[in-house]
């Protein structure tokens, strides 16, 4: 029988180092895998430029087009709610920032814990709404495959275990804290090899889209 404390020490030590390494190396590999495919030079005389419109599209795709939003508000709202909840609880919880500072040597100010706590609840509720949408919306139901549900779980578990750990809702505490860290490690390990990669590749995708349209004189 492994003691909860030994488990916590292991996930905070070896397991963390290994998963963080896989995360970083994996992302570099995946980005190389994409960019090394290159794209053919375009010989048609351009009407507009590529770089500026590409950068602009990176920003503008954060806002949905009004008509599309009206037809599918749940996808947009639930998507926003869970992403914001997730980002606040990940990047503005003081112990998280301390861990970043200890690992990478720099930190930033955090938010008061009640705000982070509320954000976590938002994140959890948002993710549940996203799951419900995926299971019931006919388009999403048809599109979704096992990976979509896997990445949902990988995102949900850290929020849930984090909430349980912070509120001391599981005894012993080292066990739930250990499980929280383990869930993050699973997230880190699988991140580069699943759709979680969209976190990074969407910048490439939006830029290519904006650039290809921009060349023709259309702001996409």
């Amino acid at each position, binding site marked *: 029988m492994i003691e909860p404390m030994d488990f916590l020490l292991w996930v905070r030590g070896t397991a963390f180092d290994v998963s963080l390494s896989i995360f970083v190396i994996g992302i570099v590999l995946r980005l190389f895998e994409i960019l090394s495919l290159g794209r053919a030079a375009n010989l048609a005389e351009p009407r507009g430029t590529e770089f500026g419109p590409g950068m602009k599209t990176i920003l503008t795709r954060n806002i949905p087009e009004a008509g599309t939003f009206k037809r599918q508000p749940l996808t947009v709202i639930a998507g926003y709610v869970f992403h914001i909840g997730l980002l606040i609880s990940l990047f503005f919880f003081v112990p998280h920032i301390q861990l970043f500072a200890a690992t990478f040597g720099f930190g930033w100010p955090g938010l008061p814990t009640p705000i982070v706590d509320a954000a976590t609840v938002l994140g959890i509720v948002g993710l549940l709404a996203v799951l419900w949408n995926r299971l019931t919306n006919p388009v999403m139901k048809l599109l979704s495959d096992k990976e979509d549900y896997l990445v949902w779980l990988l995102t949900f578990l850290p929020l849930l275990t984090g909430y349980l750990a912070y509120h001391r809702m599981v005894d012993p505490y080292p066990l739930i804290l250990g499980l929280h860290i383990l869930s993050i490690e699973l997230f880190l390990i699988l991140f580069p090899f699943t759709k979680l990669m969209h976190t990074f590749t*969407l910048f490439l995708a939006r830029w*290519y889209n904006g650039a290809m349209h921009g060349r023709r004189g259309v702001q996409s």
Partner: protein
Amino acid sequence: MSTATLERGLNALREQIDAPVAAFFSSCVNCGMCAEACLFYTETGDPKYTPIRKLEPMRLIWEQEYTIAGKIKKLIGLSEPVTDEMLEQWQELIYASCTLCGRCSLVCPVGNDIAFMVRKVREGMVASGNSPPDVQSAAIRAVKIGSPMGIRLKALQAQIKHIEADTGLKIPVDVEGADYMALLSSMEVINFPEYVESLAKIFKEAGVSWTLCSEAFEATNTGIQIGSTDIARELVQRVVDGAEKLKVKYVISPECGHAYTAIRWDGPNLIGRPFPFKVVHILELLDELRASGRISTKDPSGEPVTFHDPCSIVRKGGVVESPRHLLDMVSTNFKEMPDHGKWNWCCGGGGGVSANTDAEELRTRVFRRKKSQLEESGATTLVTACANCRLVIEEGLEEYNMEFPVTGLTEMLAEHLVTKEEA
């Protein structure tokens, strides 16, 4: 062309995968928002028409052969291969229910250019023998006869004779050293010869030196529609040869959507070198003539008129303001449709759909989108700038028993043109 096989199809798909495609597939989280941008989904409610799903054959190849996890999954037998049956089943999704209108590409939250990828998947469909027979025959006619509708030079010469006799205008053919070489779409030769007459009238007034080319008058490019680089290249090469022979400075793309994509944006890439001439869309040229004061109009109509933006010219071509400037010359009561300009909805017949009899019923169903747009516009006349849109819309209006005259913008401008005699 060599025989179509699954292997050739898969190879064609592999050749299409580049950095943008890999970035797009890596970013898709199956959110389904693209469905809401596609009239084939909004008008039928059938989730199978979700744009991103139409790319599944190429996505599978990408995942299995171009990603670490996919390669491992394939190695241990966890992946589903792309089969002939799958491609056959996808024919409807790739051809009958996608007009390459590109509206989904503007909506995708992660920025995927889905229409760009559908065009790429078509290369695999052609190489594997899964393109629709109707579009195939149109492509064969285009290569062998010179026009997808089977229209020969003789038919054009007959139309020219008619126009010259009726109007006293001169339609120049094969004039070496002219500034502009005008291209036509087969539909303009047969269904809308008014376009040719309008060009002659406007160019005469504006003093534009122009010509048609007897060896290269067809602007449409079935290779672009069906998704065959080989055919597309051959058809573009004819235009380039004609323009180089006549030593023109400009080639004019007519009121046809995909012809503009073919000659303006894909052309130089197809033949592998920049053009020694410039390509302009007729609306761009007319707008230039307007801006420089070389043409003027009279008696603008007060009747409410609206404009249908052809996808290939506006959203995918960047000619957005020119038609509006020109409409202001001929109308005092121009009304925009809801969702206009780059957000316009397709007529439902672009990208080869109107040539595909398998798509007829579906095309009529999805026309409801245009129907409601027209009703909401408050206009009584529709102007457009694409012969294919025009025919598709006229057919749709007839199907839904709507009285709504449709006209071409160039034609409308010619009607209101101030001639030298008058001035």
